[in-house]
């Protein structure tokens, strides 16, 4: 799946970070923000985070769970898991291809 073609637009990067963060289990907004910051050094602003969450949810790639207090956890759907695998595989190919070109001949 190509992120752009799924309508993620300029929030594609944030969307992928969110899906990766949900890869090891459900998380609410702050937990995602914290996980992404700690793991990748990227801080998603609250506006960016919820724009991406909203789009992913509308596209059926993530789904909301029962709210805990005021916080609502999200988890990957089956479609989201498949999309994430495809996306990461594509990025892996891209990285391998790029590194291959950089390797001394």
């Amino acid at each position, binding site marked *: 799946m190509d992120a752009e073609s799924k309508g993620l637009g300029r929030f594609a990067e944030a969307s992928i970070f969110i899906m990766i963060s949900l890869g090891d289990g459900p998380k*609410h907004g702050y937990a995602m923000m914290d996980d992404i910051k700690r793991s990748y050094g990227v801080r998603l602003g609250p*506006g*960016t985070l*919820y*724009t991406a969450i909203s789009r992913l949810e509308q596209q059926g790639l993530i789904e909301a769970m029962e709210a805990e207090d005021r916080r609502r956890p999200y988890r990957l759907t089956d479609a989201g898991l498949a999309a994430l695998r495809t996306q990461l595989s594509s990025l892996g190919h891209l990285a391998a291809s790029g590194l291959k070109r950089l390797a001394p001949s």
Partner: protein
Amino acid sequence: MKWLILLYPSWWRSRYKEEFLALVKESGLSVRDVLDVVLGAIVARFHPAGADAGSPPERGGRRSSVVLLSTRMCVALLVSFVLIAFVQGPVPWSYSDGAPYQPRDSIHLRTVSPLDILDYAFGRVHEHMPVTRAVAMRTAMSTMKQTGVNISVREAILAYVYESTNLNQCWPAQATHGHQAQVCSAQRDGHVYWVLHIVERPTPSKNPAQLIFIDARTGHLTDMRL
């Protein structure tokens, strides 16, 4: 910051408001976050996916939504920029990578344009000082010029930097028109002053004053002494 939520369309608020406020409560909200939220609200209003979320359309239909959007967005952007420019207070004087300050010729404060405010707001130009101080600095430079001494923008910025870190210090200023001068920062009666100490003037000189006191907060001349 609950007012920020009002920028979002009703379908978005009814769906995400509570958890969004919980997130903001936990994570805090920086100035950059405020802009991020404003931009997120703009995107949410323009993004057609909102209609697919199963929420009722906004009252008055699309036309009035656009008018409402324009008004709210303009007000929101204006308020955000004013907040950023005048409420945030002094910016720590260091670069984003934590490197110590070194004067850079690229620093420009000749005009405080809306673009400067945008740059400042988005944090792209970390070396920008608060807009209020930039205006004061321009006034101070103009004041110095009236006393017969021109100092460069770079020197003026250096004055600000020293003032922020080393009160009651002096440093040489490469004044133009043959002047040799020192700029000192000093505190008196709770006010911070820049004191321009004219070490040597070109002859003849219209102004014999050797010490020129400028209020650092306003840039206005407060005293001249021989």
